[in-house]
């Protein structure tokens, strides 16, 4: 029962054997396509190599976090995701027969995007492909599989295998977004270090017309699945994601049997709800990363660089933030506006972000899969207490949901010259806010820096910096901790680079240079 007919993109034989390109992306998945689109919209030409000829199939990312939606608004596909997807803000946790508590993620009004939109990854990939094509700058090569990689100091030589034979191309820069089993990572002999969780999960995408609200529901040891946990998410097209914890001893082959899966789903839904299986897979989770993401002219993004368990929705969202972080930097280097060393900041910013995602998803997985009897006793004790005591609810860990990385201590940030006690911290992704005529993030520069000027006079022109006057009172001022005459400099990826209690064009120019890695 298919709710989505995957597009098949045409294979075209290469006609540029021996050619050299400025940017080659390996992997036309969520992260690779996002990186390609970001660079293309900044004016770069990009070649994308993918070993398949379609979008991802089956149970992949579904929870697109607010920050990811903001990035996709910048890239022009945010509205499509919101329109097609399922917005949810409520989560519920159950233990045994009882509901323990519910929580609301929508803490604040005045953001264009909700906390989460659930949508099957293949829709997003399909729209990314269309948007890449629309730029006229992305050369999408389907059924082009990377077979060899030689990473050199001044570029990367690639051998590419296709149904019509092999060819070679060169790349000034190679972006490896080829997933958890990255061939590029293997070719460079890089080990991803971390841990494998000794547990197995059955992930079923089920089509059903259920009269259930769009909520994230998590059961610990429910009566319909004794001894394990179950997670339920609503997606588009009446497709529901159900995730059953099976334990390490489960037999993956037997558990994949449709009759067995149907029995599990039937036990959960009861006798009256008709359903059909759309996709079933068995997973074991890992939390690990490679030591460095940049290796000279080869840069790793997404699952090729780091992997997490799915609890917290930090895989896809983390990967999209990688692309967001890298795109403007590589563009600035290619334009000659920034030195190559700017790209080292991709490591210094995204490795701590990956570690935060790994830490959070490891803790969630350890809560969901207790490692010993003592851990289980504490886990169950937390759940028992949480039903009647508010203090225990923050201890319940069924997934710490993805939040944007704050680039604390980034070498690209200019330290505050005066105390800045309120509002978003330096290095944070710019908070959105509602203005009289739209949303703040829509006002940021398409390609360049943005200076938010709080009810002040604009400075004279500062190259590469678009100035936007915003109110010095109300929502925007509050979210930035700013008052009249203050100024906040946003990077091209909308992170806060610097801020001042005065407007000094020279200081703003220096902060822009620092964010571009021009200052040693």
């Amino acid at each position: 029962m298919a709710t989505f007919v995957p597009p098949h993109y045409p294979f075209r034989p290469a006609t540029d054997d021996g050619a050299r390109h400025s940017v080659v992306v390996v992997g036309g998945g969520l992260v690779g396509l996002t990186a390609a689109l970001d660079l293309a919209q900044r004016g770069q030409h990009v070649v994308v190599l993918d070993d398949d000829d379609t979008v991802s199939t089956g149970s992949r990312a579904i929870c697109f976090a607010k920050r990811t939606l903001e990035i996709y608004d910048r890239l022009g596909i945010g509205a499509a995701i919101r329109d097609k997807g399922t917005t949810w803000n409520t989560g519920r946790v159950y233990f045994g027969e009882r509901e323990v508590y519910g929580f609301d993620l929508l803490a604040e009004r005045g953001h264009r995007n909700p906390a989460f939109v659930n949508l099957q990854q293949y829709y997003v990939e399909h729209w990314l492909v269309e948007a890449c094509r629309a730029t006229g700058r992305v050369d999408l090569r389907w059924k082009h599989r990377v077979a060899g990689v030689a990473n050199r100091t001044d570029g990367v030589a690639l051998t590419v295998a296709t149904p019509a034979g092999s060819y070679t191309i060169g790349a000034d820069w190679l972006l490896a977004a080829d997933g958890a089993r990255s061939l590029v990572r293997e070719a460079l002999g890089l080990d991803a270090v971390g841990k494998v969780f000794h547990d197995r999960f059955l992930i079923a995408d089920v089509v059903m017309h259920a009269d259930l609200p769009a909520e994230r529901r998590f059961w610990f040891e429910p009566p319909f699945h004794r001894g394990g946990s179950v997670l339920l998410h609503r997606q588009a097209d009446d497709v529901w994601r159900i995730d059953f914890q099976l334990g390490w001893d489960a037999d993956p082959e037997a558990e994949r049997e449709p009759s067995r899966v149907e029995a599990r789903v039937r036990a959960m839904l009861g006798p009256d709800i008709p359903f059909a299986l759309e996709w079933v897979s068995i997973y074991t989770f890992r939390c690990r990363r490679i030591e460095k993401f940049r290796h000279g002219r080869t840069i790793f993004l997404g699952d090729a660089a780091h992997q997490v368990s799915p609890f917290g929705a930090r895989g896809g969202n983390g990967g999209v933030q990688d692309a967001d972080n890298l795109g403007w930097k590589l563009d600035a280097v290619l334009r000659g506006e920034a030195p190559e060393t700017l790209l080292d900041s991709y490591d210094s910013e995204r490795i701590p972000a990956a570690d935060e995602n790994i830490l959070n998803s490891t803790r969630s997985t350890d809560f969901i899969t207790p490692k010993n009897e003592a851990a289980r006793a504490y886990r169950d004790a937390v759940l028992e207490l949480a039903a009647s005591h508010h203090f225990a609810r923050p201890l319940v860990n069924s997934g710490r949901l993805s939040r944007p990385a704050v680039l604390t201590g980034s070498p690209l940030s200019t330290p505050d010259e005066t105390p800045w006690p309120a509002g978003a911290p330096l290095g944070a992704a710019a908070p959105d806010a509602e203005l009289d005529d739209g949303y703040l993030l829509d006002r940021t520069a398409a390609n360049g820096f943005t200076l938010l000027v709080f009810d002040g006079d604009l400075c004279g022109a500062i190259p590469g910096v678009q100035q936007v006057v915003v109110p010095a009172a109300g929502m925007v001022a509050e979210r930035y901790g700013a008052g009249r005459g203050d100024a906040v400099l946003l990077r091209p990826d909308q992170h806060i680079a610097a801020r001042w209690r005065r407007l000094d064009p020279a200081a703003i120019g220096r902060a822009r240079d620092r964010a571009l890695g021009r200052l040693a």
Partner: protein
Amino acid sequence: MTTLDTRPRLDDPDLAFESLVEAHRDLTAEQSRRFDARLVLLLANHIGSVTVLRAAITAARATAWEPAEAPPAGEAAASQTGPATMRLASARAPRS
């Protein structure tokens, strides 16, 4: 408060001990373990400081008297255990 206070502080130590032991009456080993976990969580929240909690965890680990050999199984063997076969894990463990 960010340091662990290990001075004698309980106004009625005998009642405190009796209450803890009494609370486990009729509980299976598994129920006892979960009860202790709930109790620890309630008290940890009352303390309200992860620093103090971690200091208490360190102190509790440091003061374990470990059997010199693997713990015997069954009641018959239990009578053989006692101070003679135990050693103090840390000579400078806090006495609390």
